[in-house]
């Protein structure tokens, strides 16, 4: 890419394109929905199975975040490989 005036403008334009491309695929929304559902479901399951009063509530509630991150990784792969 040549450095013509408006390189920043070009970056902005390219970002807008990528955003449109991302949000116009159904798989994007499925993956995001699955991420949120999985994170919440795991948090609930872990919480429900903790009967120890000394349990770390915050840690339990965030137990689903790691699997959620994996699903966001899947979204990244889908975005890149769709090109």
């Amino acid at each position, binding site marked *: 890419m*040549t450095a*013509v005036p408006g390189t920043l*403008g070009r970056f902005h*334009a*390219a970002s*807008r*394109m*990528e955003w*449109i*491309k991302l949000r*116009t*695929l*159904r*798989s994007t929304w499925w993956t995001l929905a699955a991420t949120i559902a999985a994170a919440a479901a795991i948090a609930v399951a872990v919480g429900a199975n903790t009967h120890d009063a000394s349990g770390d509530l915050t840690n339990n509630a965030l137990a689903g975040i790691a699997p959620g991150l994996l699903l966001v990784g899947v979204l990244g792969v889908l975005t890149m490989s*769709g090109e």
Partner: protein
Amino acid sequence: MSSEEHVIEVRGLTKRYRATLAVDALGFTVRPGTVTGFLGPNGAGKSTTMRMILGLDAPDAGHARIGGRRYRELHRPLREVGALLEAKAFHPGRSAAAHLTALAAANEIPRSRVEEVLGLVGLTEAARRRAGTYSLGMAQRLGVATALLGDPGVLVLDEPVNGLDPEGIRWLRTLLRSLAAEGRTVFVSSHLIGEMALTADRLVVIGAGRLVADTSVADLSARYGSLEEAFLRLTSASTEFRGSSARTLDAGERTIS
């Protein structure tokens, strides 16, 4: 539109794939205001030449320039050159409208142009459907819409007629002729001679990567009796794929595979 900046110049263009010389010192000029057909048998090097004009393949020698510049030197390529190389060059999960809107955003083309080109190619009804569900003809129409998105002065279309029904073929012919009449450069490849005879004013004919004719349709058909005859004679020495029985038929009956 000034005409000089819309001229496609190909000079000494050469591309080699290992032992095969795909394009061999090819030279021709495509001018604005007319539809120029690019003819040649399968494997003659048409697509390779178009890819080099569009900067997608690097030539081993020679150059291709548009308005005196190489494609990669163009400031706003999509607004200067519209191209159709493959019918299905889009994500199957994205709708035609989304595909065009994304490209418009990247090239700072107003969003209203998306609806405009969708109307121009007759895809308004199907614009919100996922493009993977399109027929080949509809995919070609989306390809044409993509090429026209930036309202470019130069159009390079590789086999746009493929997959179109008779109504679609007539539509494309009328469209290309009117785009040329507006002063644009229209360069269209095909192996359908009959269709080119109706669409193009000028013809660039290649065989085995070499230029065999660069002339007007009228001149070529007058000299050989018919355009088909001209095509078969000119490319007979270089046709790569030929049915085994072809040698026993005369030139006029020979079929191009």
